[in-house]
């Protein structure tokens, strides 16, 4: 660690940490970032750039880092594209620069740099066109291999993630001086405050500077303030947490890294990262500012970094940027960096200031210290490949070119400062408009559209004193808005810090050759290798809008989202177009501020918790019996119950036979049940069903179809009249919630005069369908007091009584065609009822059957399933169910639509039965049907909606929707080529007991 200062900084020299980078072993201290540790070891080269594979180093000390991107860790826990400037060092850390093979030091793909002249912005739009066939097999695969930065892990993520929702009166974003002041003010007023800061410790800019607050070192003051905040009950401070998204209605989201700094692996039960969803009363944006680089020839060599970054590495991490530094600036503030280096015993070779009379108060001090001061000058060239070795300095002439002699200055680091860009990203995300200030060449928050305030550097106030003052004032105001305090800010502590001083915006330093000529590159976007020449090219080619230029050149489209590149690029574009910056416009920032892992966004809602599994009262019994489950919406329903050695086919056949020949039981609890009460209940039913319910007698049950006002069937089920004004409606499993909402919607929005109450009782009742010729005997055994003979308990009626010792509601309805009882008992007794029936039925060969057998049985009988025989374009008439459409009722939902032209078409698709000529062949459900065999294209006349092997009929059966199907009875049609144009006969859609003789057993 030869560039580590013997003392100072805030790293813990007592804790040495070993780490490996690009295959080399290093040592650092606790408190280091990967970047600071590398710099302390004199390593600046970290990775290669996206396009030209140019050697790249560490440009910044924070979230805005565009180039020092690393692949962290290995195996299932490896993580791509992390910024070395934000990776906290831990013992045993391993990392490597991205986009380099075999290594950043010797990169195979560096040859691409030599072809640079062929790769201007957007070159790929202009070539790889010939021969056409090469794109897919040669060009694109090559481009893909070259592109991309890091690698995704190859194994599933072993770590877990979670989420936390939080409400606060005042959200303060940013833990620098302004943010701390705001949080203190709001917290002291008693408001609920949330302070979010992306770093490990509070302090922000103070951590990089030697300014004093309240008479002590700024960082020390920040730590003390952190202590005070921690002591306030209603204040929560989230460190290592990035506020990345500002959404509508003051909803914001933050990304907390809970364990990454500890290294791989997380404590048991602990989430690695956490997503915070925040609802804030008011927001104080104290997000600070990013120093912007100057754009000059070959300004991207390792060793060239932001002045403020060098200052941060020096003052916080006690690491010198190198042996000999050169500062290149257009503003006074940056002199501080050079001064700090000199103070720390480092060497600054020269200060190059593009201004003619720098007003920097520190200038004389530096000259005293022997630092050469080149005013009105620029860096015209830099030299050195994997590390800057020297720079060429020249005077700025009239007309912006170089003039006079050029000096070569040796150095191994260059500190650059082009001024400061307020971090307005979140303000822009909040839908606030930005304003441009010519004098300093910066974008500032304009009019806010949400309850927020930007303060401090984020608001263009770069002075420490004003940061503290603005923060305190905003914090107090925000607290007052929430009803705490009177809005008067607490006094702010005295500071010892220079005012930011003067700046002259400077966008592009001339090189030794005209822009774009020769090898030199004026890099604007360090990550995507976008140069000033590229931006001019885009302008030349007619790309006038900043959005066009972004997309054409990719400036600002990298993982840093252009934090260091956007404003420079914009100004260079404006210059190229001869316009002002505001005229060229500014891109709107979108979330996230910095990238967020998919894992954190998913939280714990993955795997078994991705979506609720809904279970019935008998679920555990089904599991124990080895049922195979079918997902139906969120429900899991028994599909079939294989016995040892049985496949699906055998199991389903056995279950079907049992129902037809003896007795079977099905768990029907998932069907929706709605209790409908009120004097106008009948009127409601008459409107929502196609048939009439006014004629239904108490104690009887009726099947109904529901249509939308577009005339299409969307649900069906049976409804029982339990009393004069009391009904129980059943719905399909998938539509249970939807149908209740449907009824409520009409009652509340269209027919408020109807006095009806609807209550879901779906999960009050566990439902068992007991079906088969022996069903009555089985039920009799468990319901001795219930009269079950056909006269006292006729088909389509309901009875209440005691079954298996429990109060039950029994319906005599049938979805199989066999004698059948649907027994409802309170949910908690469902398992008991089921087991009682199994026991009582043993003698009768009772067999549990699943949804597959149920589907086969109802298809044999020709009963439809909504969503299978219907698809949202099917009317009751298409289903051949005219019998259920009331001719008497003047109005009900759906009726009007049937008189529309398309609904009256003769050749609509109609439900028919399909029998394959070869009884053994079972058509796949969904199979399309055609009239003629041949080569596609072939017109289709319909499709198979249901298709099974029918154990009862000993052959395959199918239902289908076929154009003019009813007129085709007896005709031969063909299944789609996938089924080998299998010939089939069109038949009635009922294959079993058409007279319904079986229903009474």
């Amino acid at each position, binding site marked *: 660690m030869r560039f580590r200062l013997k003392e100072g900084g805030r790293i813990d020299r007592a804790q040495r940490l070993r780490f490996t980078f690009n295959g080399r072993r290093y040592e650092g201290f606790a408190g280091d970032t990967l970047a600071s540790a590398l710099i302390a070891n004199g390593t600046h080269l970290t990775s290669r750039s996206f396009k030209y594979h140019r050697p790249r180093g560490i440009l910044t000390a924070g979230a805005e880092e565009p180039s020092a991107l690393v692949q962290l860790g290995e195996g299932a826990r490896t993580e791509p594209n992390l910024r070395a400037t934000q990776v906290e060092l831990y013992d045993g850390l391993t990392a490597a620069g991205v986009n380099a093979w075999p290594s950043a030091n010797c990169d195979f793909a560096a040859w691409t740099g030599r072809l640079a002249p062929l790769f201007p912005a957007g070159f790929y739009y202009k070539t790889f066109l010939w021969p056409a066939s090469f794109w897919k097999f040669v060009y694109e695969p090559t481009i893909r291999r070259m592109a991309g930065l890091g690698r995704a892990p190859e194994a599933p993520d072993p770590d877990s993630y979670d989420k936390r929702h939080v409400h606060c009166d005042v959200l303060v974003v940013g833990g620098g001086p302004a943010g701390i002041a705001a949080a203190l003010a709001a917290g002291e007023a008693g408001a609920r405050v949330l302070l979010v800061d992306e770093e490990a410790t509070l302090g922000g800019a103070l951590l990089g500077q030697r300014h004093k607050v309240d008479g002590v070192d700024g960082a020390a003051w920040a730590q003390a303030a952190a202590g005070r905040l921690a002591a306030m009950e209603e204040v929560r401070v989230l460190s290592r947490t990035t506020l990345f998204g500002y959404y509508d209605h003051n909803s914001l989201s933050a990304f907390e890294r809970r364990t990454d700094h500890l290294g791989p692996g997380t*404590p048991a039960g602990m989430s690695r990262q956490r997503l915070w969803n925040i609802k804030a009363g008011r927001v104080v944006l104290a997000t600070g500012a990013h120093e912007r680089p100057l754009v000059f020839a070959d300004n991207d060599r390792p060793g060239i970094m932001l002045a403020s970054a060098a200052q941060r590495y020096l003052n916080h991490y006690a690491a010198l940027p190198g042996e000999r530094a050169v500062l290149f600036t257009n503003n006074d503030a940056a002199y501080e960096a050079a001064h700090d280096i000199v103070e720390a015993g480092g060497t600054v070779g020269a200060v190059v200031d593009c201004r003619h009379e720098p007003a920097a108060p520190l200038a004389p001090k530096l000259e005293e210290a022997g630092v050469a001061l080149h005013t009105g000058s620029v860096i015209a060239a830099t030299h050195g490949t994997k590390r800057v070795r020297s720079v060429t300095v020249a005077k700025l002439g009239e007309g912006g070119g170089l003039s006079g002699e050029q000096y070569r200055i040796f150095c191994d680091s260059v500190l650059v400062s082009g001024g400061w860009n307020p971090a307005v990203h979140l303000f822009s995300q909040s839908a606030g408009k930005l304003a441009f200030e010519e004098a300093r060449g910066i974008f500032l928050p304009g009019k806010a559209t949400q309850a927020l305030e930007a303060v401090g550097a984020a608001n263009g106030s770069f002075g420490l004193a004003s940061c503290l003052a603005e923060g305190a004032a905003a914090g107090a105001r925000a607290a007052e808005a929430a009803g705490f305090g009177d809005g008067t800010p607490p006094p702010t502590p005295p500071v010892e810090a220079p005012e930011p001083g003067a700046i002259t915006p400077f966008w592009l330093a001339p090189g030794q050759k005209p822009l774009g000529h020769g090898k030199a590159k004026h890099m604007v976007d360090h990550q995507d290798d976008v140069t000033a020449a590229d931006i001019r090219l885009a302008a030349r080619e007619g790309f006038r809008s900043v959005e066009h230029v972004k997309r054409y050149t990719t400036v600002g489209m990298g993982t840093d989202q252009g934090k260091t590149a956007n404003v420079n690029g914009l100004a260079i574009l404006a210059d190229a177009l001869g316009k002002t910056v505001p005229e060229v416009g500014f891109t709107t920032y979108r979330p996230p501020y910095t990238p967020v892992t998919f894992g954190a966004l998913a939280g714990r809602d993955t795997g078994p918790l991705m979506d609720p599994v809904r279970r019935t009262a008998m679920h555990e019994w089904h599991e124990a019996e080895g049922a195979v489950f079918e997902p139906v919406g969120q429900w899991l329903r028994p599909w079939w119950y294989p016995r040892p050695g049985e496949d699906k086919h055998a199991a389903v056949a056995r279950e079907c036979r049992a129902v037809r020949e003896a007795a079977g039981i099905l768990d029907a609890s998932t069907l929706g049940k709605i209790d409908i009460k009120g004097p106008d209940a009948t009127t409601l039913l008459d409107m929502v069903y196609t048939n009439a319910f006014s004629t239904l007698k108490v104690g009887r049950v009726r099947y109904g179809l529901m249509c939308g006002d577009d005339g299409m069937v969307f649900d069906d089920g049976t409804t029982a009249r339990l009393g004069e004004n009391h009904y129980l409606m059943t719905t399909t499993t998938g539509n249970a919630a939807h149908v209740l909402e449907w009824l409520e919607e009409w009652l509340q929005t269209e027919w408020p005069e109807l006095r009806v109450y609807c209550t879901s009782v779906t999960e009050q009742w566990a439902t068992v369908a007991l079906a088969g010729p022996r069903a009555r005997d089985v039920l009799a055994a468990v319901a001795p007091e219930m009269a079950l003979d056909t006269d006292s308990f006729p088909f389509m009626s309901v009875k209440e009584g005691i079954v298996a010792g429990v109060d039950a509601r029994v319906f005599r309805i049938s979805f199989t065609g066999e004698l059948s009882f649907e027994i409802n008992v309170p949910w908690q007794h469902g398992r008991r009822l089921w087991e009682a029936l199994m026991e009582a039925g043993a003698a009768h060969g009772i067999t549990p059957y699943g949804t597959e057998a149920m589907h086969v049985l109802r298809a044999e009988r020709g009963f439809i399933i909504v969503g299978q025989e219907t698809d949202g374009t099917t009317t009751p008439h298409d289903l051949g169910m005219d019998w259920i459409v009331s001719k008497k009722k003047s109005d009900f939902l759906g009726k009007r639509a049937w008189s529309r032209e398309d609904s009256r078409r003769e050749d609509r698709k109609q439900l028919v039965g399909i029998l394959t000529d070869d009884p053994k062949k079972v058509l796949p459900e969904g199979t399309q049907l055609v009239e003629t065999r041949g080569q596609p294209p072939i017109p289709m006349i319909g499709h198979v909606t249901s298709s099974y092997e029918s154990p009862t009929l000993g052959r395959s059966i199918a239902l289908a929707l076929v154009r003019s199907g009813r007129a085709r009875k007896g005709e031969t049609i063909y299944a789609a080529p996938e089924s080998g144009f299998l010939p089939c006969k069109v038949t009635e859609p009922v294959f079993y007991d058409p007279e319904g003789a079986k229903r009474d057993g």
Partner: protein
Amino acid sequence: MAEAAAPRSPLAGLGKALAEMRADGVTIAEGPARTRLNLRLDQKDVEALTAAGAVLGGSLPRTPNTAATTVNGTALLWLGPDEWLVTGSAEAGAQLEDTLRARLDGRHHALTDVSAMYATIALSGPLAREVLMKGCRLDLHPRAFAPGACVQTSLAKANVILHQTDDAPSYEITVRNSFSVYLATWLLDAMAEHRPA
């Protein structure tokens, strides 16, 4: 009326996991079986409201997001402007239902027994709020949500009735049977980080 047969809770399968869960600052347990009646009434129908109040031993809360507890320990949960959930002891059951129905006879109302429709999960302790806030978007901070507060909302991906019963804080989460195993599993997972090391 059948002789009371032993009911089986939808959470029976998770009984062991719930019983064995140990976490610092928060406990989880299944709530007892209850009588639950869903009551629909036009809240402008003062007579009906009074009648119901008389039977219940306390008036039905008219303030949204609240629950009232009557002298005889029946909890009256506000569910909507014309909807309440009346929850009493399992024993109260049929008798309560019958008297209410009798008293409301002739007035437009709906009284529906939903005793068997829900499971309840009790979450309690200083960290209970922390656990809930991992899946609840509402503000449960004491300044916004105190004992007696009762809301219908989403917890994780399930619809629940969330009722704070004391300022331990303790919460009673009422969830539909079919979602109860999912929700309990989710809560156990959310509590895991508080397990003693």
